[in-house]
């Protein structure tokens, strides 16, 4: 018969081995910039360094402008021309505002699409919430780029977006998936950003 201490040692050894074998590492993933966000950073840093000719070239040849042209129907009219004009005029503030509007519009589009997918009752609730979580990650990746610019122009809107984002994120992490509860904060993000776009768009600036 096996003695109790021996048995305990064997059990402890087996438990340690399984946990050690379970603890193998498989690497970690750090989300990378996509061509649009990478191009935005290049333009932003060039503007900050006062290299407007470089910023203009990066804007003309980069992925951001191509995406802007693709998204043209959802953007305020004259946005591209306004950014180009600001870069030519070495007007960092207006250029930054134009880029902020573009990303705010991207985020607004993502928030509305997330809301639409969350409302689709044909998909399982857990899958809808998981998809909503992925959409939130994408929303944050874009919003994070212009959060500072938004908060400088409209601190209330920036706070409202961040609070709504955190609320929606909380529902993603909740033990029971409830897609319906995720929808209001997403709609709020879209509505607040629509206001920011409206207030900062080139036509609004001309009118003020």
């Amino acid at each position, binding site marked *: 018969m096996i003695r109790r201490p021996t048995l305990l040692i064997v059990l402890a*050894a*087996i438990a340690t*081995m*399984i946990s*050690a*074998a*379970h603890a*193998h590492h*498989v*690497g970690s*993933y750090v*989300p*990378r910039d*996509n061509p649009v966000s990478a191009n935005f950073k290049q333009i932003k840093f060039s503007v900050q360094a006062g290299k407007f000719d470089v910023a203009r070239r990066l804007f003309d040849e980069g992925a951001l402008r191509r995406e802007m042209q693709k998204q043209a129907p959802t953007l305020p009219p004259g946005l591209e021309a306004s950014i180009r004009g600001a870069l030519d005029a070495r007007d960092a503030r207006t250029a930054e505002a134009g880029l902020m509007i573009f990303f705010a519009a*991207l985020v607004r589009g*993502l928030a509305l*699409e997330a809301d639409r*997918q969350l409302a689709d009752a044909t998909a399982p609730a857990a*899958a809808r919430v*998981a*998809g909503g979580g*992925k*959409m939130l*990650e*994408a929303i944050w*990746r*874009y919003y994070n780029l212009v959060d500072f610019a938004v908060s400088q122009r409209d601190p209330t809107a920036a706070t409202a977006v961040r609070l709504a984002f955190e609320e929606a994120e909380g529902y993603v992490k909740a033990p029971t998936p409830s897609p319906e509860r995720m929808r209001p904060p997403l709609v709020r993000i879209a509505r607040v950003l629509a206001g920011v776009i409206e207030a900062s768009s080139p036509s609004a600036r001309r009118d003020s």
Partner: protein
Amino acid sequence: MTEPRWRLPPIPVLLVGVVLIACAELGGGAMAQFKLELARWARGTMLARPHVHGLVGVRDVDEQILDEALVKLDGGLRLFHLHAEGMGTIIIVTAMVAASLVDRSALRRTIVALITVGGAVYPLGYLLWSGLIPFHGIARGKRLAEWLVWIPFGSAAILAMWLLAAALAAQCIRSVAGRSRVAP
């Protein structure tokens, strides 16, 4: 004439170690050579299974999901390359130490068998994981690789090392105790 101190492990064990190192080199080379084709195949396979990967049909979201899966797939292949190289060497060295220094033949055979089987199959878990990612996703692929390969064969390799360490420690203690009894 004195008996040589170091003994070669059994030839099949040596062969397993050498073949594993060769597979590691081959895997590393193939990974670099066919990087683009592999990425294209994996991307196509994942796009054909949107529900498995949680693709939502929005480019800004899906590109990140696909990118993460491709990075993990590449990471799995790299880890296979690294672990196969390392475990090949470990099999040869551990089996040689056991063959030379462990007195009890049953224990010696157990250690050699465990390190050979465990050490040879464990790295294949990374290859399996990489292959499963496009079909089952990162997390489910990892769970499968864990329960099919990493846990059973990794445990076998760890058990072999523990047994070897314990056997050598016991022999060391016995030898010290024997010397102190002989000493006046």
